[in-house]
């Protein structure tokens, strides 16, 4: 038995649509040791949901094509037939979906939805299955389990429904659990309860878990490792602590800066990310984040960076001008001097919106950057590396990463 439960290599999932081919997942590789939790973070459309569905082989649409390799417990999942996959779903891997209302059947009682696959997979009889289902409802801390067993989903609150979904996912004792935005539809207090429940169940059952979310706050204290996705690729992957303390990719930095923090005084301006994710039918040449990145340079528009390792084990990132490097500092300075819109937005000098001029023309950028470099070299004054209100985390991060690398 190898140490890694899941090894994904160069996974690609493309969807054929009238407009062309959507490259939803475009070359993702990752490996996940047993009993560990991986957080997958990114905006809507970054491919995080498609990634987890592709690993589970749930992309059944006829226009979906998945290639690459998914080795689960030593076996290649992409070679399995649908019938073989049915044996794996539930018993080996299971998923908790985002919306607990639509992932339960509204016209079937909770009890039957719980016993259905226990009977199918484990071959239990009616009464045994009921016993098992009630035990599951109690283990996810649903009060009055007997009464809930005969309830319809609409009679339960959102939090209770999500608990039922977790009970269903765990019923056959899977080794691996995918939680796809399990708390996005829920209140903060209930979110806290559900995340604690997932963590407790994971510890008890020694499960391996992939927690997909758009909120870095959710994964911060609850994962061993985090992969940040953008436009179908992993742009940075690191052990959780390293990611927060020594992040290298500008997108990770931007995501973190955009989160409203409860300990900041009222009316603190948030650092929004300019523009929006790229069109995945015609992804840009070069780095996909370039059009929104405050550190964009001509090279970023020519060539896509590959994932490169850092001295910290397990920490990789894909960026030409990583945070904390001299090149990055230099890129910021020249872009500030040249008035590149992304950079001004990150510095809070212009309002960042989805429609702000985010397209950067390569020749134009090369020109302004060159001019700015010449100005800087001749000692012309400019606003300082971070501008008057530069990104909050910048200085600390630069300081802490310099030490690390």
């Amino acid at each position, binding site marked *: 038995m190898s140490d890694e439960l899941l090894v994904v290599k160069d996974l690609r999932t493309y969807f054929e649509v009238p407009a062309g081919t959507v490259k939803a997942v475009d070359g993702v590789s990752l490996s996940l040791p047993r009993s560990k939790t991986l957080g997958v973070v990114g*905006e*809507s459309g970054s491919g995080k949901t498609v990634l987890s569905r592709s690993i589970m082989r749930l992309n059944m649409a006829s226009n979906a094509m998945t290639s690459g390799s998914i080795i689960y417990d030593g076996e290649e999942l992409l070679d399995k037939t649908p019938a073989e996959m049915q044996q794996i779903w539930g018993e080996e891997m299971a998923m908790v979906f985002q919306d607990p209302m639509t992932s339960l059947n509204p016209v079937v009682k909770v009890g039957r939805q719980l016993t259905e696959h226990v009977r199918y997979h484990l071959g239990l009889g009616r009464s045994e299955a009921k016993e098992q289902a009630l035990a599951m409802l109690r283990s996810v*801390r649903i009060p009055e389990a007997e009464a809930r067993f005969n309830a319809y989903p609409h009679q339960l*609150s*959102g*939090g*209770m429904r999500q608990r039922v979904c977790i009970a269903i996912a765990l019923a056959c004792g899977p080794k691996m659990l995918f939680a796809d935005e399990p708390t996005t539809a829920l*209140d*903060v*207090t*209930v*979110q*806290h*309860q559900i*995340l*604690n429940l997932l*963590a*407790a169940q994971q510890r008890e059952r020694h499960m391996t878990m992939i927690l997909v979310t*758009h*909120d*870095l*706050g*959710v994964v*911060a*204290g*609850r994962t061993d490792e985090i992969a940040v996705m953008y436009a179908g690729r992993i742009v940075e992957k690191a052990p*959780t*602590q390293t*990611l*927060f303390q020594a992040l290298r990719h500008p997108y990770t930095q*931007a*995501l*973190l800066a*955009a*989160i*409203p*923090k*409860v*300990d*900041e*005084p*009222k*009316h*603190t*301006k*948030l*650092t*929004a*990310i300019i523009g*929006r994710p790229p069109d995945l039918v015609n992804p840009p040449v070069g780095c996909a984040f370039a059009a929104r990145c405050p550190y964009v340079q001509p090279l970023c528009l020519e060539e896509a960076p590959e994932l490169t390792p850092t001295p910290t084990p397990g920490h990789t990132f894909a960026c030409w001008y990583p945070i904390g490097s001299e090149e990055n500092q230099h890129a910021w300075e020249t872009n500030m001097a040249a008035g590149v819109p992304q950079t001004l937005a990150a510095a809070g000098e212009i*309002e*960042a*919106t*989805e*429609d*702000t001029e985010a397209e950067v023309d390569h020749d134009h950028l090369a020109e302004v950057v060159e001019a700015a470099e010449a100005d800087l070299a001749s000692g012309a004054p400019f606003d300082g590396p971070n501008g008057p209100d530069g990104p909050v985390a910048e200085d600390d991060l630069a300081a802490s990463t310099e030490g690390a690398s």
Partner: protein
Amino acid sequence: MAGSGKAHLRPADEMVLRVEDLVVEFPSGRGGTVHAVSGISFDIAEGETLGLVGESGCGKSSTGRALLQLPKPTSGQVVLDGEDLVDLQGEAMRRRRTNIQMIFQDPISSLNPRRKIGEVVAEPLRVWGPRDPDEQWALVREMLEAVGIDADLARDKHAYQFSGGQCQRISIARALVMEPKLIICDEPVSALDVSVQAQILNMLESLKDRYGLTLVFIAHDLAVVRHVSDRVAVMYLGKMCEVSESDELYANPAHPYSKLLLESVPIPDPLAPIDTEIQIEGELPSPIDPPSGCRFRTRCPYATELCVTEEPQMQKVADDHFVACHHPLVEVMA
């Protein structure tokens, strides 16, 4: 408070909006009554943002709608600029309603999918604004540009051609075009990604500075509320728990429920301790049959016999900081 009382209200003549003893009830099947809002009072000064916070089902959206008289509250007063809206009927109400506008949670479903954006934003003007289409368009254009939408491009497009964040900005433009005295934002960013959420929150702040807006900002996320609010009111099961100036509330929460909400906010720092032994379990009780006395007592770790029998009243714990609790976490001022 899950209690009542009006100690936290400020002088009536200085307030844009003053709500007193607002009660909203809905009939439920079999003769029951849903007590959505049970006697809350609050006020808002001009140019102020009031954050209204609580879990789903605490009555915060019902409160927002009751301000617009949609539907009319069961009892209580909603005084906007010295005039009680609850007394108004028919045409007079319709006229007054233009002073309050609303921004909804789901930006895509709150725009008519079959109308062009130019028409959607101009709709309130077609009823109440200038008759001349060119004048209307000039106003619409100004508002669309103010929210960062290219008006000429958007004019003939439909809602589905825009992203969620853009639709939310269009909804904001539609609310602003009437130059309302009060805007009610009902969870305006909870359906959006963090990056877009930051854009919308920053934009609301700058629009507020530019047009001197007065806002009621309804949300369940305390971190979001802190960024935009001058004052925060915490609601629980149709009652008001705590009202305070925002920074004060976050520094010294006086109500056990406010503290629970604050502790539930996920902190983007792996070293921050996670409270896995949640002290306060459970969910909101049914509003059809709310608990006696303090409504929070069924989940409160400090609940005593007193909380069962007597409803707590608003008490002052600091300047501009009031709490309705028998056992507040902060010393009550004499």
